């Protein structure tokens, strides 16, 4: 269980502090799949980075299973079972997929089925294990390997930042199954930042984050119904009807 208590985040800009997150309060429960959605610039990725320890909150506390981890660094949080799949994963010259996944699996590396891991993200292990995680991989391939790094070890909290770039190409059904497995095997809490309708459909709860605040927490059924009725706010644009023509990423 991950509790976000009164969390705020400020970013300095030319001497002016801009509030990115404003007094957020939320509890992510075990075995649940959350989708965080909302307009660009609403604070979604910032919240993910606060959870991983990449950003330090200006105020508030972060509690993991009763332990106050607010002042824990990235490594400490990783070792407590928090994982974050980057929106734009870095590339590494000279480091092979096998090595990266072995690091990701940590102490359990010997027992981890790297091939199965790649299969779970729709990649053929024979083709990919010995490839370098460098510029030779496409953006989609890189995103899938990034997802595999998060799934390589038993984790409590797995955060995926806009995974759609990598998963457009393969079966969503497979992704749904993979997430279900994570739940069943490890009781993992899954948090996905996404605008994608198909990803929203996997959610137990949907959090809409806008202007640094939780605008609403709702069910996937309600969000889907709103989308179907055309009544809901666009999830990606600030004030457009459906974001069409304004944001090429907008699919929902």
């Amino acid at each position: 269980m991950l509790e976000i208590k009164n969390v705020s985040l400020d970013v300095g800009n030319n001497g002016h502090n801009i509030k990115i997150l404003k007094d957020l309060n939320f509890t992510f429960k075990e075995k649940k799949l959350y989708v965080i959605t909302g307009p660009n610039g609403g604070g979604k990725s910032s919240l993910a980075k606060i959870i991983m320890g990449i950003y330090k909150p200006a105020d508030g506390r972060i509690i993991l299973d009763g332990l106050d981890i607010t002042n824990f660094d990235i490594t400490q949080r990783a070792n407590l079972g928090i994982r974050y799949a980057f929106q734009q994963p870095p590339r590494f010259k000279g480091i092979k997929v096998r090595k990266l996944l072995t690091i990701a699996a940590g102490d359990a590396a010997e027992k981890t089925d790297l091939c199965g891991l790649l299969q779970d993200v729709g990649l053929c292990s024979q083709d990919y294990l010995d490839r370098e995680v460098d510029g030779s991989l496409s953006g989609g391939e890189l995103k899938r390997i990034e997802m595999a790094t998060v799934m390589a070890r038993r984790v409590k909290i797995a955060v995926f930042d806009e995974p759609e770039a990598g998963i457009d190409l393969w079966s969503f059904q497979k992704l749904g199954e993979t997430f279900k497995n994570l739940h069943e095997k490890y009781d993992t809490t899954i948090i996905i930042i996404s605008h994608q309708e198909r990803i929203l459909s996997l959610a137990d709860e949907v959090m809409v984050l806008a202007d640094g605040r939780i605008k609403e927490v709702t069910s996937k059924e309600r969000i889907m119904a709103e989308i179907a009725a055309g009544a809901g706010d666009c999830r990606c644009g600030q004030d457009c009807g459906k974001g069409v023509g304004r944001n090429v990423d907008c699919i929902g």
Partner: protein
Amino acid sequence: MLTALDNELLEKIADLHNIPIGAYNIRKNGEGVSRNTTANIDIITKKDQPGIDVRIKPGTKGESVHVPVIMSASGLTDVVYNTFEVGAGSEVLIVAGCGIHNPGDQNSQHDGIHHFFVREGSRMKYVEKHYGEGKGKGERILNPKTIIEVEADGIVELEMVQIKGVDHAERVTEIHLQKNARLIITERLLTYLSQEAESKIIVELDGEDSTAQVISRSVAQDHSKQKFYFNLVGKNKCRGHVQCDSIIMHQAKVFSIPEISALHQEAQLVHEAAIGKIASDQLIKLMSLGLSEKEAEDTVLKGFLK
């Protein structure tokens, strides 16, 4: 006679755990100490200057030659001229390299001048590793010069590695490629403390359809200084590509001077050079997988220099 220290140096520069199989010539403190020849590979001491002639018979396949140099005395300057004749249609591995253990306060220097003739249709892999150690104040200096003539249809793979240990290095590599000859150079360099290293690689693509690929990766730490100068000279219809990447850390300095010279209308030459620090998102990613910052940094550098 080889001591335990000598064996350690040999392991560092030639991956040798013992006396190698195949042809070899081990030079220690300016003198040859051990040699083996095979039916196809002869090694002869030069009469007019220090050094050896290595003669590989045409058609020799799957054999190797090790010619390591080790220095374990302080205040020694060793200049050696080695000539390698790789007979037509051969496939061989040649491992050179120099390991210096300088125990004293005087400089120890080795200048190896290697000249290769890779005859028609031959394939040669040449590995050169440099290594230095020793607690004295004396510098460990290596100034290798490598000249390779590659005849028609020849393939040369050149691997040059120098990781720490050498205080001052000036490396010059000159290669001439004839018709259809292929060249792949990989260079790996890491300097730290106040070490200085300079690498100059000139590749002349003389023959039609000759190709050259140079991949140089380096890491400069502390107050060390590195300088690279690469020039691909296209004199015929040819293709050449230089990729030169450096990671800069601390107060180090890196200079990269690219040059590509096309002297023929159908010469296609590309030069890419980049210098930068370790990207913070690389460190953050590895830390988010449970590594400490130091472990993350080491992992990035190790991969980069692999």
